């Protein structure tokens, strides 16, 4: 460790999640190199919702996978609670883009999967039912995933992660496959869950409105190589009004940023 490491650890005590100069590149099929993230830095305070927006290939999902511990950066520091991230952990939950629940488990068993994996199921059995009730899934405990709607599947996927009470929750476009109406409802549910469990939430989205509606901070990114071009604080009170002038103003700003980068 270098001499600056002490202060970095101090900083992350407050920051909780700290990424500094992260670089991650992949080899393409034709042998060329694709730099997904280049010198990417981000600091996240306790209990914040951060939204990463940007076009495909700007490294948003790569960053989530790095935080989840499913992948490792080639350079840079990635600390959580002052500790470097090494491998996946139940304290960093991940809701995947494709909400493919385990099709061989019922809704209740899907929700309980993490507890069973960690051997906590017998102690905390009651929490499964609580979570199911909280997400409005009561009555569907015994249903198989192929029998429920897309919105419900998203709720089960959220419940599966939130029941672990993780410090960080990574949402990789969890609602992109849903219709606008269901999406709006589940966005409110995510806010409610966040207020109850108070984790850090990192949300990756193509949808600027969703980002502004949910996040405390919106980080705008550009591809090739993936880097950050803006970090906007959203100081609107919750519950937010999508048609409020402030909301629309922020949305327009972000869209303009993205557009100007495209040119």
């Amino acid at each position, binding site marked *: 460790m270098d001499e600056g490491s002490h202060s970095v650890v101090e900083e992350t005590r407050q920051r909780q999640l700290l990424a500094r100069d992260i670089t991650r590149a*992949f080899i393409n*099929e*034709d042998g060329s190199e694709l730099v997904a993230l280049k010198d990417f830095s981000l600091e996240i305070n306790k209990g914040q919702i951060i939204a990463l927006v940007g076009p495909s290939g700007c490294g948003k999902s790569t960053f989530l996978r790095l935080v989840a511990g499913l992948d490792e950066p080639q350079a840079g520091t990635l600390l959580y609670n002052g500790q470097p991230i090494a491998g996946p952990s139940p304290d960093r939950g991940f809701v995947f883009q*494709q909400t493919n629940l385990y099709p061989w488990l019922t809704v209740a068993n899907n929700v309980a999967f993490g507890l069973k994996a960690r051997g906590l199921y017998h102690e905390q059995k009651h929490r499964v039912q609580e979570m199911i009730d909280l997400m409005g899934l009561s009555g569907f405990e015994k249903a198989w995933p192929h029998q429920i709607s897309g919105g419900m599947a998203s709720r089960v996927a959220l419940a599966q992660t939130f029941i672990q009470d993780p410090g960080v929750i990574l949402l990789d476009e969890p609602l992109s496959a849903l219709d606008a109406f269901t999406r709006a409802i589940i966005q409110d549910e995510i806010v409610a869950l966040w207020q109850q469990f108070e984790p850090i939430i990192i949300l990756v989205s193509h949808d600027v409105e969703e980002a502004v509606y949910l996040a405390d901070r919106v980080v705008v990114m550009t591809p090739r190589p993936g880097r950050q071009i803006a970090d906007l604080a959203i100081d609107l009170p919750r519950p937010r009004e999508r048609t409020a002038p402030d909301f629309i103003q922020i949305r327009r700003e972000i869209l303009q940023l993205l557009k100007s980068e495209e040119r």
Partner: protein
Amino acid sequence: MLGKQAIKQLRRGSAQAKPPAPKTLMQPAPKAPLLQKPRLRQLLQLALPFVGIFVALALHQLLPNVYPANYSPRYWAPILLICTAIYALCYLLACALVPLRRRLLRLSWLLAAVFLLLEIYDIATLKTGTLKLPFIPSPDKVIEQFVVNFPQILQAASASLQLLATGFIIGLMLGLVSGVLCGCSRIANYWISPLLKIAGPVPGLVWLPIFVVGFSSSRIGSIAALVIAVWFPITLMLSNAIKNTDLEYIEHAQTLGASRLYIVFHVMLPAAVPALANALFMALAGSFGALSAAELAGVKSGLALAVKQMGTIANFGVVFAYVIAMIFIFSTLTALMFAVRNWLLRWQKGLVRW
């Protein structure tokens, strides 16, 4: 079963234009130019089979031949030398050609191990007599028998292959027709499926006694047994896959104005291809079983009969030679089948690999 998965994957693929970046990017090996100079490590690894061959050769030459007494091996050393020559040629080519090099690099450990194992076998038989004659002959003896009996082996193999090809092709045609019929028509399914369930799982050896009498020809009876072994899995799995075709696909085609026949050939059959590939595997392996049964109890010719006859008179050198020929033919045919199937399913990920 596979069909359903394939359709789901198809649909998933079409719903989202781009899969998450890291997964698709990490899997395939980078495409390198055709010609490239090898690195030292690669050269060393490529040389591993030489080590195996030379160790085998050295042990074979140095150790005395003790079992059976007064036996002097004539074939094993020349075969090893021929292998050396062939591999040397491959080695030189692999120094230049990248695709061949990659394949040889993958095989190098395996080839080295094979030669060492064969030498252990040589030591266990010829050099020490740990494994006794007549049941387990030395590699030298097996190769000698292979060379001496080569015309007979070739003849038996061609007889086997002819019978197999006839039965397999007829069975495949019948299976495709009845599979499509059962899949599309309730009435056909009602009458064919009981027949399928009754006749299908019963092995050829059981049918042969009555088939040979019933068709009053051992050849036709044997072909009939083969046909059942192929027809059964193809019909069962194909009809299932067709029945399970996603209704959305069919309705979509209907709204586009497709006729029933068009839907069968352009929607249902393509959707059933993964299941068909699975069925082909079972049909092929099953037809090998039926083939040996037919050779033993029906036509009385071919590889399996030769193995049995030579086994009865305890001529195990010849038995081993025939078994080697069988292994070669059957594994080559299976590999070919998997190649066809990989080609058919080149759009699908995660199928049963060979």
